[in-house]
């Protein structure tokens, strides 16, 4: 290690390492076609009234702002912004010289229209923008969002993957709830929809008039829709795909991609999604009204084993109602209940449920969101059977599942993937707020959990402008919910990305693959 030759070599290496990114930053290569894969074909590429398309929307529509990896807002269509001291008015200065794909100029009227349209038609926008009373447009380049109550989460809800800014002149006459079709795919974004072949792919071409010159670097993005995991894996191996998210190949196969000469595995987690899998108890089931039974179930589950076997390591233990992926708000004091079959058995015995002759104590119906790997349900079922709970699973397709849990309430336990998105008020409150126990409303308070103190904390946090005070409110919330056990929080799955090693900057900020791809380029 101490030979002068070695030192020289080391110095040279360090130098090369310093030079290389600098050279790259100077001259990103123009051109190339990016082939991006989605698992399911969405009804529209737009996130205007649809939550299944966060990865395509930003390519066509910009947001007011975008975010760095720590959720710090960065300018996009808004160049600067300010909040009034009472927390009730956000003023945005808008970018000059921006035009839509059809050549019409972008103005504050489009911002006002889009925010109100998101409030009316976006599944989460109804909550996020619930306090918006009006959007003032004092001039063409200024928009003021006026609120009835402070909404501290608003500033993180304005990314292009969540709140796209659409042209008023196109959408004014367009139905609020209908998914926008190709004629409505007109935005200010870096790519223009050229064609959409249903059941196969969509072609997005470079927007030559994009405001952020010289971006975008790519000539074209092809979005392919491939529902079969094996087909996606084969296409990646054949070199037909460059990029895909949400674990596009089976996790069991991931090990092979780690050493792939052409492909890379990216396991960063992104603050905008807040992935979380949890079990909700139906507290209307008499046997589950007993806290000892719910605690016993929590003790019967080995969360680390779930990460290791079901997710092959591609998840993190996430024991609190606020996902560990939301590092700003997750309270590390909340830790999983100890995995111990003896404790679980003891609690169930104490609760007055002895084992019958066949070794079982009582039956429970276990449902699971079909977007979750069925192996997680099998793992939970077998863990419960081990402590004498005769759990049976049902394979339901998505519609039947939503109806079974949220309308018919024909379940005792359900494994949900209630993602926390970018803020607990938007993503977590819906599952625990007693006023959100609404039969028939998907992804609401399925447990029928009612705790006045939790309601108070959630409602206070929703309007608390001071981040430190807000964090304390959410910490108290997490501790109470963890003690009450209306749910057992399990894991936060990693949103594994497979990417061609030659592409750069496909997920710059908190939005992950919801990035607008304007900075994506190939290197040699």
């Amino acid at each position, binding site marked *: 290690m101490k030979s002068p030759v070695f030192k020289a070599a080391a110095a040279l290496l360090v130098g090369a390492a310093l030079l290389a990114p600098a050279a790259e930053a100077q001259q990103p290569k123009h051109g190339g076609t990016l082939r991006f894969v989605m698992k399911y074909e969405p009804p529209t590429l737009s996130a205007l009234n649809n939550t299944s398309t966060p990865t395509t929307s930003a390519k066509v529509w910009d947001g007011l702002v975008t975010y760095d990896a720590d959720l710090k807002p960065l300018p996009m269509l808004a160049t600067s912004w300010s909040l009034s001291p009472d927390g009730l008015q956000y003023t945005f200065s808008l970018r000059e010289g921006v035009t839509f794909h059809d050549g019409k100029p972008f103005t504050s009227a489009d911002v006002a229209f889009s925010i109100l349209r998101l409030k009316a038609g976006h599944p989460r926008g109804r909550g996020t923008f619930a306090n918006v009373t009006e959007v003032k447009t004092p001039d063409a380049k200024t928009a003021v969002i006026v609120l009835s109550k402070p909404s501290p989460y608003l500033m993180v809800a304005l990314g292009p993957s969540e709140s796209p800014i659409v042209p008023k002149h196109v959408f004014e006459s367009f139905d609020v709830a209908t998914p926008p079709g190709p004629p409505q795919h007109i935005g200010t974004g870096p790519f223009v929809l050229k064609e959409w072949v249903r059941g196969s792919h969509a072609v997005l071409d470079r927007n030559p008039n994009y405001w952020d010159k010289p971006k975008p670097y790519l000539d074209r993005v092809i979005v392919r829709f491939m529902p079969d*995991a*094996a087909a996606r894996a084969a296409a990646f191996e054949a070199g037909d795909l460059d990029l895909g998210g949400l674990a596009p190949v*089976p996790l*069991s*196969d991931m*090990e*092979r991609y780690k050493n792939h000469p052409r492909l890379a595995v990216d396991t960063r987690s992104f603050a905008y999604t807040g992935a979380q899998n949890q079990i909700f108890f139906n507290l209307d089931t008499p046997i589950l009204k007993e806290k000892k039974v719910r605690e016993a179930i929590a003790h019967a589950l080995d969360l680390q084993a779930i990460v290791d*076997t*079901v997710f092959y390591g591609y998840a993190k233990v996430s024991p609190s109602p606020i996902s560990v992926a939301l590092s700003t708000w997750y309270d590390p004091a909340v830790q999983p209940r100890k995995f111990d079959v003896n404790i679980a058995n003891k609690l169930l015995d104490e609760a007055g449920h002895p084992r019958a002759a066949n070794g079982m104590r009582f039956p429970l119906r276990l449902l699971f969101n079909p977007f979750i790997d*069925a*192996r997680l*349900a*099998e*793992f939970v*079922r*077998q863990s419960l*059977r*081990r402590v004498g709970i005769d759990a*049976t*699973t*049902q*394979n*339901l*397709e998505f519609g039947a599942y939503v109806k079974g849990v949220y309308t018919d309430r024909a379940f005792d336990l359900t494994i949900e993937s209630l993602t926390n998105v970018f803020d607990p008020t938007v993503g977590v409150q819906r599952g625990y707020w007693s006023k959100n126990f609404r039969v028939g409303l998907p992804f609401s308070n399925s447990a029928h959990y009612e705790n006045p103190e939790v309601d108070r904390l959630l409602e206070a946090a929703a309007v608390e402008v001071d981040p430190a005070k807000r964090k304390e409110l959410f910490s108290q919330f997490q501790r109470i919910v963890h003690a009450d056990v209306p749910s057992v929080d399990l894991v936060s799955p990693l949103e594994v990305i497979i990417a061609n090693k030659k592409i750069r900057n496909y997920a710059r900020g908190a939005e992950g693959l919801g990035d607008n791809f304007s900075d994506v380029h190939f290197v040699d």
Partner: protein
Amino acid sequence: MTTATERVPEAMPESDGAWRSLRAFLRNPSAVIASLFLVFVTLVAIAAPLIYPEDPLSMVTRPFLWPGQNPQFPLGSDTLGRDVAAGLVWGSRISLIIGIAAMALGVTIGIVVGAAAGYFGGRIDDALVRLVEIFQTTPSFLMLIVLVAIAEPRVESITVGIALVTWPTIARLVRAEFRSLREKDFVTAARGLGYGHLRIIFIEILPNALPPIIVTSSVIVASAILMESALAFMGLGDPNRISWGSMIGAGRETLRTAWYLTAVPGVAIVLTVLALNMIGDALNDALNPRLSSER
């Protein structure tokens, strides 16, 4: 068939014919091997709770043990650490139960419909033939998927679903047999003696129509096992019971890294279905004297 059926039934030398058929069957070595294999599978299925008393779905060891790696788990373990050998043994139960029960139900429906259509003819025949055609013109596996998806996948619903898509084959076969048999002398004789329709159908004609039904039944058991496997492979099996198809479906994701998870239950299905088809062929030879004498 010709010699037996042209007599008045009371005079039928049934035992003679049965013995001859059995002898013919036993002279066919592949039939004997196939039968022995099926007997073995059946015994294993019956003895499953004795061989592996524990729930075959329970996670008993570390995941991805290869066959032979640990003598305690001779066929290895799957992605969640479940014993593949236990799954194979318990899976034979579901496969055989569904195969045999679906066949029995389908054959019963088929015989009732086919016999009524063939025996009575006329409008009843027209109506029942239309019904059979409705079922036969719908792709049977698609219909099965729809039926099971609506009824929620459980062993009972899968069995009924398979029976509902297989009965038309039997119905057409039975109808054809009845149409040719109803004009025979022994049937005319039975009518002349004043027997009722039910007695003529079930006591006089049906026994004479049985040989082709028996042959087809063995093939139907095989195809029912395949259909259940295909359903389970697609995730439409009973999630709380292990079957060979569900083992293949679960192992499919790891086909490249742990091929034994699909190969082991796959071989079990292939051998069982092959055995049933060989028995079907042998039965066909044995029960059809004309064919066997031609050889």
